[in-house]
């Protein structure tokens, strides 16, 4: 909302500059985006001139050489390119040294050999209106040489307000003036709609026009007045200037009057050329589903059954509150005008304007829900201007098709509640003064107030708490509100164990050398295919958005891997030679069920989350984990480098993982494993399939992705119990086991642990040997064993016995000890 400062001051002059007012407004709830200046930055150097003579330029067809009286002893020679310049005109003149809008400083110029000592200006050049036809011609009766600012607003400050959607009243300048009155206590001018125009036309409005409202729910009020003897022409300079400063293009006097009344009251109006409305009959109805109409902008639009149309005998002529019709538009030949001022259902207008992608000054006001009472305010203001500026005659009577107006709200404001909610006291006389200045009716009832809400605030102020906000903001939060803390209710703050462990997992990944990425939750629907995920896999069934910003962002991710691959590609394209990334974030699975706890997607509340969104921890490495150097190293990360990372991560949490060869569509089939916790699937790890790498322009990459809920759920960190390792010494032994190739290290280790029983505290594979002397298809694994009893020192015989039982267990998986 653009509010020209001079216009505002005419209604309520706070006695302070626009910048200071802007700050006061901001501190009381109306944000001022900026204070702009319309027109030249300063009025200096702009005067009224009188064209004494205008002769054709000797060397240029389109230029005139003018003699202009600017109140100085000698007349000035000014070369002018406008076709409409003529002797006798009063015109705006910029003298050399004046600064034009946009900051350009005017100098003396030589135009085709003739020196020009100034410039005759058009309305557009001064930013006071539109006049592509040429220079602005002023009214007679001004002394040449007078400052131009006496007749035109120059350097007009304009407050660009960011009005919150609840304040429909502040979409009109008078509403803003009332707000300024409330916060400054400066006097407020009389309501501009107080006085109506004399009705001097012939007959009665019903003789000219009729209105039928078939959709009273969506059109609670429709008023119409008729004007005859209308003389269409340009608006006077003051009106053009005011509209231009407010951001409206002047068109002709009738349209300008409608816009002016809207800017003043917030109530939009629409003028019809009555002679182009067949029979003067208008019908307001909802569209038939699929009904079409070509709107003013030449686009054919299709409506649904909730769209409200304004129709005449020829069919739909406009979309209610959004766009008028071309057929009945006011034009140069218009002699009789029907002025519509209606009230519409805001929700319906908002819906339709969204649906059609059409938004106008009018619709943006109607969608905030105006009160039906406003209609006649606008009618009265416009009627007086129609008579005054267009020489029109107002036909007696107003067509007024209206449902019952909503009953005004009467709200009790308890004095105790004001202080109870705010934590500051506002004296009752102050409360009364603030509310009355805002236009509320107030009756004092002991400590309480009975408050009547004016129509302008009917939809905004409906409850006691809304009144508390009104008195609080006018009173001034910044100056008066104390700074306190809530009384302690014995609450203890903190993170849950799950939240602490999640942080620990993220920190562990950082300490292991990985950078945390935050990828987009959106992806393109083709990602599953690029990851070679088959259609039957739940990860191919992404949650799709119905209104994405682009196709590339239309699906919700089902893996963190895809995001990490995108990030890796981006970084390699920026010349990174290696990346080591992780992300802790949600994936979204339409078909999935939430597990236990927030990390698994189970959240507080009576309704479960609409889709499963478990939190995953993904990790991706391209290139070496540590850089190589002159000493060597720098081998690219492979399956085992990342498995070591995952094991270290699990170690930080005290979680036990198991790995088993298992394919994933996006992994190298021979270098892929399922990660399990307590036998349940918790993720995967592996080198990426070369075809997947190719899709992301990578040579090779290795990754894992685990469910954080499972990882954190299995964590024992923080819950450990002391184990005595000092009283009785451990016995360490190495074991070399020969097994067929196909027997996994894990099953060898399991057999060893099984055979060793409780006294075998650990068994770790530390070497692998494959050589001719073992024979084809066999390998040897070396394990380091640690035996310990909690209550005694183990004897050699005991350990030898355990070794024998280990040997037995190994035999069951085809293994034997190698001596």
């Amino acid at each position: 909302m653009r509010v020209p400062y001079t216009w505002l001051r005419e209604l309520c002059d706070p006695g302070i500059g626009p910048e200071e007012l802007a700050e006061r407004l901001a501190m009381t709830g109306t944000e001022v985006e900026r204070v702009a200046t319309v027109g030249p930055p300063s009025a200096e150097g702009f005067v009224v001139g009188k064209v004494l003579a205008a002769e054709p330029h000797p060397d240029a067809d389109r230029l005139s050489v003018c003699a202009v009286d600017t109140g100085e002893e000698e007349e000035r020679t000014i070369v002018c390119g406008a076709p409409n310049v003529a002797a006798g005109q009063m015109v705006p003149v910029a003298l050399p040294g004046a600064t034009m809008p946009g900051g350009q400083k005017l100098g003396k110029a030589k135009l085709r050999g003739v020196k020009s000592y100034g410039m005759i200006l058009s309305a557009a050049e001064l930013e006071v209106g539109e006049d592509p036809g040429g220079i602005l011609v002023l009214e007679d009766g001004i002394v040449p040489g007078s400052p131009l600012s006496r007749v035109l607003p120059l350097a007009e400050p304009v407050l660009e307000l960011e009005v919150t959607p609840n304040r429909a009243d502040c979409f009109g300048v008078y509403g803003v003036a009332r707000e300024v009155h409330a916060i400054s206590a400066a006097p407020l001018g009389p309501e501009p709609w107080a006085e109506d125009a004399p009705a001097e036309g012939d007959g009665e409005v019903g003789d000219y026009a009729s209105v039928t409202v078939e959709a009273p729910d969506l059109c609670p009020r429709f008023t119409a007045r008729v004007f005859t003897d209308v003389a269409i022409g340009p608006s006077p300079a003051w009106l053009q200037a005011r509209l231009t400063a407010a951001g409206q293009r002047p068109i002709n006097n009738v349209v300008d009057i409608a816009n002016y009344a809207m800017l003043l009251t917030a109530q939009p109006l629409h003028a019809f050329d009555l002679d182009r409305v067949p029979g003067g009959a208008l019908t307001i109805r909802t569209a038939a589903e699929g009904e079409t109409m070509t709107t003013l902008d030449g686009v054919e639009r299709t409506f649904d059954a909730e769209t409200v149309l304004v129709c005449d005998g020829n069919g739909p002529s406009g979309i209610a509150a959004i766009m008028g019709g071309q057929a009945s538009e006011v034009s140069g030949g218009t002699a009789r005008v029907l002025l519509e001022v209606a009230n519409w259902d805001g929700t319906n207008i908002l819906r339709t304007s969204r649906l059609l992608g059409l938004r106008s000054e009018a619709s943006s006001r109607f969608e905030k829900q105006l009160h039906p009472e406003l209609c006649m305010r606008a009618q009265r203001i416009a009627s007086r201007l129609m008579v005054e500026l267009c020489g029109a005659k107002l036909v007696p009577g107003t067509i007024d098709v209206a449902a019952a107006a909503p009953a005004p709200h009467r709200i009790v404001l308890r004095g105790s509640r004001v202080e109870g909610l705010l934590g500051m006291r506002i004296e009752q006389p102050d409360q009364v003064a603030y509310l009355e200045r805002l236009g509320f009716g107030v009756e004092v009832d002991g400590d309480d107030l009975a408050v009547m809400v004016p129509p302008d605030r009917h939809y905004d102020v409906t409850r006691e708490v809304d009144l508390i906000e009104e008195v609080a903001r006018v009173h001034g939060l910044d100056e008066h509100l104390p700074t306190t803390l809530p009384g302690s209710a014995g609450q203890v703050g903190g993170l849950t164990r799950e939240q602490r462990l999640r942080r620990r997992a993220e920190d562990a990944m950082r300490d292991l050398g990985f950078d945390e990425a935050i990828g987009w939750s959106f992806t393109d629907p083709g990602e599953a295919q690029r990851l070679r995920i088959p259609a039957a896999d739940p990860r191919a069934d992404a949650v799709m958005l119905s209104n994405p910003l682009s196709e590339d962002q239309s699906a919700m991710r089902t893996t963190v891997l895809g995001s990490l691959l995108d990030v890796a590609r981006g970084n390699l394209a920026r010349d990174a030679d290696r990346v080591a990334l992780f992300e802790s974030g949600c994936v979204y699975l339409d078909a999935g069920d939430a597990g236990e706890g927030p990390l698994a997607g189970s959240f507080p509340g009576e309704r479960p989350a609409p889709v499963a969104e478990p939190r995953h921890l993904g990790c991706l490495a391209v290139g070496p984990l540590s850089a190589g150097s002159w000493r060597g190293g720098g081998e690219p990360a492979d399956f085992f480098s990342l498995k070591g990372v995952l094991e270290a991560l699990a170690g930080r949490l005290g979680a036990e993982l198991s790995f088993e060869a298992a394919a994933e569509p996006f992994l190298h089939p021979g270098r892929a494993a399922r990660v399990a916790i307590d036998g349940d699937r918790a993720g995967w790890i592996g080198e990426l399939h070369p075809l997947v790498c190719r899709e992301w322009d990578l040579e090779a990459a290795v990754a894992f992705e685990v469910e954080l809920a499972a990882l954190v759920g299995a964590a024992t960190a923080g819950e450990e119990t002391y184990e005595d390792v000092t009283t009785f010494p451990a016995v360490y032994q190495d074991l070399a086991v020969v097994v067929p190739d196909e027997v996994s290290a894990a099953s060898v280790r399991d057999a060893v642990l099984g055979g060793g029983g409780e006294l075998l505290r650990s068994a770790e594979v530390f070497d692998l040997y494959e050589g001719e002397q073992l024979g084809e298809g066999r390998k040897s694994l070396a394990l380091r064993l640690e035996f310990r009893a909690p209550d005694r020192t183990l004897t050699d015989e005991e350990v030898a016995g355990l070794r024998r039982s280990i040997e037995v267990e190994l035999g069951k998986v085809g293994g034997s000890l190698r001596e």
Partner: protein
Amino acid sequence: MLERIEEIRSEAGTAIEAAPGTAELEGLRVRLLGRKAELTTILRGIADLPQRERGKVGAAANRARQELEALLERRAADLDAAELEARLAVDRVDVTLPGAPARPVGHIHLITRTTRQIEDVMVGLGYRVVEGPEIEHDYYNFTALNHPPGHPARMLQDTFYVQSHPDVLLRTHTSPVQIRALEVQPPPIFMIVPGKVYRRDSDATHSPMFHQVEGLAIGEGITMADLQGTLSEMLQAIFGEGREARMRPHFFPFTEPSVEFDVSCFQCEGSGALGDGSRCNLCKGIGWIEVGGAGMVDPTVLGFVESSGYDPERVQGFAFGMGVERIAMLRHGVPDLRRFFDNDVRVLGQFR
């Protein structure tokens, strides 16, 4: 005999001192104390000596032997040390070559770090951290937050909807978690909600995905003045000691009264001007920087959870929310919100 022993001892002592290396010393040891050595022979022949000489000769020979052993040992230690020094002296490296690269240390994303910082501040004030789903029911995101269907306030946020479920959307704020938590926990409640949120907007100042942190405090007699105090504590913890908070009235559907809150500018100390008199670029000369929105929880919102103990006549409280990206941008001079989601490792690595 005794003279001979003394002679052996003295000659041997000189020879030991003169031994140039451990190999020579080992030769000496064999020659002096070995099986065929003269001293050994003497000791072995003591039994054949006359009775009265045995004691003296035996004692002298043994003493000589012990002395030589000690000398040999000392000389061996000296030689070892000297030889070690000599070996070390030639074992040189070029200390100017680069060190072997350690496993690099990674980085926590600045958004995560900033979120944690805010969480920690609020935890210190007695708040718990609660999380909720990003894909949410319309009911929690709008209806229960006083945005009835068709309400213009719904259009404040342009919302992504889910194809398969018309009443399901990507949450536009973290506020739906308020309702979820209030449904299951009776008052008093002090909670904070971090998380991703989504709006249908993309340019230099808007990202379709970003992060919010939201706080909520409801109990008996919690006032707007308490909101101001809480914001003030929080902003000082985030932006530094001595920062001030101010609240400007505003409009949100789920709070009444509603405010936006600012922190006094930490670059110009709230003066709006820099040391050289030029306008402060951070606060644009205003002295205050907008941080987020807040207000007293609207009674209509409490009405949706009245059955879990939130009678608007009995309990009241405040809510506040802010963008994590915005705070990170202010604190660390990040010029463009989109940089957070580029995940450029050269940028990630700047924040330790």
